[in-house]
C-alpha cells in the first residue's frame, strides 16, 4: 500500500511535468500550427541563464526562479521573431523542420560557447528536499510540481476564458483570418502564445534544475520529445488533451517501471513508445481530439 502511494505520487509528479511541457507545445501549435521542437531549447537557455547568474554570484532561490522564467519568456519571443516568423504561413512540415534547425543550432551553440559537458548549478537544491508525512517519504519538489501545475493550468484557463487576448488566442486556434478581421493584430496573438509557452518552459526548467542540479546542452530536448508524444496522445492542439496526455504518459512511465522486471528496465522507453503507437493506431486523433472528417470547415 505504502509502495503504491509512493508510486502514485511519483506518477503525478512526472505527469505534471509532462503536462506543463505539453501545454507549452499545444499553445503554440493551436495558434499557428507550429510543432515547436525547439521548446526544449527554451528550457535549456533558461537553465543556462541560471548557470551564468550563479557564476556571477547569484545565491537566492527566488532570484534563480525569476531568471529562469524571464529568460524562458524572452527566449521564446526571440525564437518567434527570428526563426518562426518567416515560416508562419508555411505548411506544418516546414515549421517542424525549422524548429528542428533552431534546436540543433542552440544545442550546438551551448556546446561551442559553454561546454559539451554538464555544468553544476546547485542553487535550486533547497527546493528538492525529502520529508516525511506519517510513514511516507515525500519530496518537496514533487509536491511543488503538482501544485504549480495545478495553479498554472487554472491560471491559463482563466486567462484564456476571461481576458480579451485569451479570447483572441482561442479564436485564433479555430480561424486566424477571422480574428484578424476583428482588428486583432496577428503578431500580438502569436507573441502572447509564445510568451505563455516560454513561461511554462521556464517553470519546467526550474523543476529540472532542482532535480538534476546541473545543465548540459541537451538539457531540455529529451523531456520535450516525451511532451510531444503526450500532446499527440491527448490530441494535438487541444489544451485539455495536452494536460491529460501528459498525466497519462506520467502514469504509463511509472507503471512500466514498476511492472517491468529489473532485467528489462532499459526497455522502458521502447515499451512506452510501443503503447503510444498502439493508442495512436486506435485513435489517430488522440484521446481527446475530435474526429475531423476531411473537408470539414469547422476545425
Amino acid at each position, binding site marked *: 500500500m505504502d509502495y503504491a502511494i509512493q508510486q502514485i505520487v511519483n506518477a503525478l509528479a512526472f505527469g505534471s511535468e509532462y503536462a506543463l511541457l505539453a501545454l507549452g507545445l499545444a499553445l503554440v501549435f493551436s495558434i499557428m500550427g507550429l510543432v515547436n521542437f525547439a521548446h526544449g531549447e527554451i528550457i535549456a537557455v533558461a537553465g543556462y541563464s541560471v548557470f551564468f547568474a550563479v557564476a556571477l554570484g547569484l545565491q537566492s532561490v527566488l532570484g534563480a526562479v525569476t531568471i529562469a522564467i524571464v529568460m524562458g519568456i524572452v527566449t521564446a519571443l526571440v525564437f518567434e521573431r527570428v526563426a518562426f516568423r518567416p515560416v508562419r504561413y508555411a505548411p*506544418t512540415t516546414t515549421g517542424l523542420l525549422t524548429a528542428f534547425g533552431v534546436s540543433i543550432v542552440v544545442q550546438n551553440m551551448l556546446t561551442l560557447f559553454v561546454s559539451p559537458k554538464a555544468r553544476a548549478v546547485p542553487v535550486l537544491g533547497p527546493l528538492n528536499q525529502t520529508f516525511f508525512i506519517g510513514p511516507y517519504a515525500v519530496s518537496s519538489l514533487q509536491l511543488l510540481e503538482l501544485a504549480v501545475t495545478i495553479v498554472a493550468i487554472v491560471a491559463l484557463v482563466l486567462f484564456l476564458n476571461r481576458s480579451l487576448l485569451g479570447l483572441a488566442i482561442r479564436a485564433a486556434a479555430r480561424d486566424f483570418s477571422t480574428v484578424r478581421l476583428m482588428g486583432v493584430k496577428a503578431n500580438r496573438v502569436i507573441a502572447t502564445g509564445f510568451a505563455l509557452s516560454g513561461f511554462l518552459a521556464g517553470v519546467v526548467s526550474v523543476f529540472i534544475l532542482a532535480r538534476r542540479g546541473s545543465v548540459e546542452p541537451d538539457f531540455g530536448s529529451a523531456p520535450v520529445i516525451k511532451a510531444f508524444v503526450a500532446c499527440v496522445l491527448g490530441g494535438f492542439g487541444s489544451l485539455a488533451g495536452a494536460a491529460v496526455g501528459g498525466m497519462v504518459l506520467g502514469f504509463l512511465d511509472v507503471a512500466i517501471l514498476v511492472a517491468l522486471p529489473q532485467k528489462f528496465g532499459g526497455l522502458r522507453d521502447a515499451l512506452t513508445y510501443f503503447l503510444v503507437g498502439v493508442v495512436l493506431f486506435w485513435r489517430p486523433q488522440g484521446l481527446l481530439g475530435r474526429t475531423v472528417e476531411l473537408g470539414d470547415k469547422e476545425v
Partner: protein
Amino acid sequence: MAPAQSPAAPMPADRSMPPLLRSILGGLVVAVPVVVIGVLILWLAPPYQVRIAFAGYVNLVIVVGLQIFMGNANIGNFGHSAFVGVGAYFVAILATPLAAKKLSIPNAPFGLSQVVLDPIVAAVVALGIVGVLALLTGFIISRLSGIAASIVTLSLLIISHGVFINYTDLFKGAQAFFGIPVVIGLPTAIAVAVAAIVVARVFRDSQDGVQLRASADDVLAARAFGVDVVKLRFKAWVLSALVCGAAGIMYAYFMGAVIARAFFFQQVFLTLAMLILGGMRTVSGAVVGCAILSIGLEAIRSLESGATIMGVKLPEMLGLSGLSLGAVIVLGMAFRPNGLMGRLELDELAAGWLRRLRRS
C-alpha cells in the same frame, strides 16, 4: 503551399520514349555526378578519405530511401534509421565468422551463434527481415497521416534503439558488434547508390508515385478520383525501408563493425537535413542535399578539431558542424521552403534549359 505538381516530365522531345525508359534514363542522369565524384575519389584520394566518402555514400542511399516515402507521401519520417540498423545488425549476426561470434554473441537465441552464411545470402536474408518489419509497421503507418504518423515513426526509432541496446544476447548491447567480414569497397557503394537513385526515380514517375504525390497535395481530391491513399503509402513505406536496409547492409560490410548509436537521432537528423536542404519532392533534391552537406560538413569538421590556416592555429571548436547543420536547415526553410531543387528533377531542368537555348 507546395506548387501543383505536373505529373509527367515536361520533355516534349522525348514523348516517343516509353515512360519507364524515360524514368530510368532520368535517374541515370541524376546519378552522373554521384559516379563522377566517386571515381575521382577512388582515383585521387588517400585511403582515409575513401572511408569518409563511403560513409557519404551510405548516407546518400539512406537519403534516397527516405525521399521515397517522405518526399512522395509528404509525411515527416524519423524512423528510417531503424531499418538501416536492422539491415546492418542482421548481416552482422548472419555473416560474422564463428570465432568472432564466440566472443561477441555466444548466447544468441535460435542457435544463431552457430550459423554462418555467405555474405550475399546473409544480405538477402537481412533485406528479407527488413521487408517483413516494414510490412508490419507499414500496416499501421500507412493508416495514419500528419503528425500522428510522424510520431509513430519516431516511436519506431526509439523502440528499435531500445531493442538493440537491451537485447544483448542477439545485438551485443551498446558495444560495437565487430568481426563482420569486409566484403565490399567504394565501387559497390557507388553502384548501390546509382541503383537506389534509379529505383526512387522510377517509383516517383510511376503511376503509384504520381498518385501518391497528388494525394500529398490534396488528400480529398485524390480520394475523390479513386486513389487508394493507404495502399500507396504502404508501398512507398516498404520500398523506402528496403532501400534504407540496403544502406545498413552496405555500412556493415564496409566498416566491419556496427554500433547501435550510429542508427539513432544523429543519423536521423543528418539525413533529414540533407533531404530538406536539397528538396524532398525530387530524387535530385536528395542527391544534391547529400552532396552539399557531406562535403560542407567534412570541411567544417576539419576546422572543428582546430585546423591551421595560413600559419594561424585555430582553437578547437566542438559543435561547429552541428551549428552549421542547424543554421542550414533554418535558413533553408526561411528562404527555400521547398529545398534547393524545388519540384523538378535535374534532367528535367536541363531539358528545359536546352529547349530554351534552342528556341533563342
